[in-house]
């Protein structure tokens, strides 16, 4: 029997079954080809690690804290500086409080970069929520392997036991329909492109270089805040100002002083989460584009359905020699399937 020729017993076409087996093997192999068994769990780790930070409330808190640092630095560099060294004493202020002056000089660039960073991360909250609502990343490889194994096994069974084909055929069609519907069930057409947007947006955020830049900012801010707290405030106190008077005259400096520990407690773990997930992000980035993920299910599903339908069953060859020959239409002298 040649490929494409119907079975003498009315079974499935071999070529279609072989194609189904190839499709199944392809699905099984896909996670290995894309290194999903290694990368997908790293993606799961990243999603889990980002969870506490990817909320409007948390990121809004960071924005407020950056604003508090901005207020404190500005007031230290202007109002407090004037109070300590007079209107014309800028150079004296810089000479007396070099750590504060250098912090004030470095801060605008840090402020701009950190504000931009928080804004960009904040813009990704809906996309993060979409990606987090997808099935667990650790399951991703199995979404390929399990249907692949089933496809290949059912097609192989049909190849070995053509008599089972009528049942197996509908199982294959059902499996194909399942693959087509899976992205709909998981809302992948909506969520996966959002995941891609987040992965794209983090290309300039979740890098070792950026993390080290932020670590450097942290060092600058910590040193600058310390200089304000340990040099400027005591200098004001030496001029006779009480804590209450300092708070009343320089509320932004007082706020930064009071809020420093909570700011530190908020910022430090975020930097840690960013730093610890650079490698995990790289793994996610190396996966195929999230936008393609729904099609990784839909296309094999459609192909499986098409192949299952194309495979037959074919009509049985008439075995009763006493049966009257079927009249043939003109122009078709040989009945289909005859040899």
């Amino acid at each position: 029997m040649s490929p494409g020729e119907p079975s003498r017993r009315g079974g499935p076409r071999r070529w279609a079954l072989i194609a189904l087996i190839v499709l199944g093997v392809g699905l099984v192999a896909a996670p290995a080809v894309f290194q999903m068994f290694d990368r997908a769990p790293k993606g799961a780790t990243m999603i889990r690690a980002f969870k506490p930070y990817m909320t409007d409330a948390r990121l809004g808190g960071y924005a407020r804290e950056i604003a508090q640092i901005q207020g404190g630095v500005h007031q230290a560099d202007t109002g407090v500086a004037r109070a300590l060294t007079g209107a014309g004493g800028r150079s004296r202020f810089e000479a007396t409080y070099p750590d504060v002056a250098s912090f004030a000089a470095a801060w605008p660039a840090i402020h701009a970069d950190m504000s931009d960073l928080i804004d960009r991360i904040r813009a990704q909250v809906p996309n993060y929520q979409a990606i987090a609502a997808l099935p667990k990343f650790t399951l991703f490889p199995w979404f390929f392997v399990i249907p692949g194994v089933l496809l290949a096994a059912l097609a192989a069974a049909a190849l070995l036991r053509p008599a089972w084909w009528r049942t197996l055929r509908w199982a294959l069609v059902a499996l194909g329909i399942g693959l087509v519907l899976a992205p709909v069930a998981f809302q992948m057409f909506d969520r996966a492109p959002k995941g891609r947007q987040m992965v794209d947006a983090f290309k300039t955020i979740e890098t070792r270089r950026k993390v080290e830049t932020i670590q450097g900012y942290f060092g600058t801010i910590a040193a600058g805040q310390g200089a304000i707290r340990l040099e400027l405030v005591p200098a004001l106190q030496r001029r006779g100002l009480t804590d209450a008077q300092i708070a009343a005259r320089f509320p932004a400096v007082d706020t930064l002083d009071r809020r420093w520990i909570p700011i530190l407690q908020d910022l430090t773990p975020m930097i840690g989460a960013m730093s610890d997930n650079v490698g995990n992000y790289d793994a996610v980035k190396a996966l195929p584009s999230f936008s393609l993920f729904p099609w990784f299910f839909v296309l094999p599903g459609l192909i499986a359905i098409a192949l299952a339908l194309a495979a037959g069953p074919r009509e049985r060859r008439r075995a009763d020699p006493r049966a009257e020959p079927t009249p043939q239409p003109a122009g078709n002298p040989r009945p289909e399937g005859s040899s």
Partner: protein
Amino acid sequence: MTPSSRRATLGTLIATAALAAAPTLPAAAAPSAHAAGASKVTGTLRITPGTFAGGKPNGSWFRMALPSGTAYFSNPGSTATDKTYTLLAPGTAGGLVLGTYQGGATFDASGNSQAGAIIKPTPFAGILFGVATLKQEPASSPASAAPSATLKGTRLSVRLAALTAAWNKLFFNQGAPKPGKSSPVATGTLNRRTKAYTLDWKSTIVGGPFNGFTGVWHLQGTLKGKVA
């Protein structure tokens, strides 16, 4: 194959088999002090408080190099003129006790470390940091042996894998060697007569907000203990 080449092949096979059969030496069970001709040191490495004068530190101190390796973190809480040096003072145990773990690695609500046995908790960017020796620090997988020391001539070697800095409710292993590794160890000198010692090591932080920062440590003081 000539007889000599056969002998060489046989020798190679025997050597390979012997190497394959030899038990793997775990990192923590490196050659013993005595086997290496060194003497075991026991007791407490008492810490002399750090001071800063004449543009240089004396006594015990700590610095943290940035990941770039070109600068040090400036600690506003340091009492040194050069704030890249954080001066250390002895804790309730007087220093580093060899052969045992020194814990107390807990925090108050503000994240100040309560680990006060080895060094007195010290301000670091507004929050107190302390030091402990932990068998296994939180979020770190390999277990570490308690500190141990050997002396060969005047060269002091201390295995400090368990040393952990605690700050802001976080732990940073500052061991030498790092947990699960066999080198490099902390090294310095010990005078058998006066028992004055110095000890230096570097330890790069792995993971967390200070990933890639390197702690640079210098302890000095006197040994309250003995050299076997």
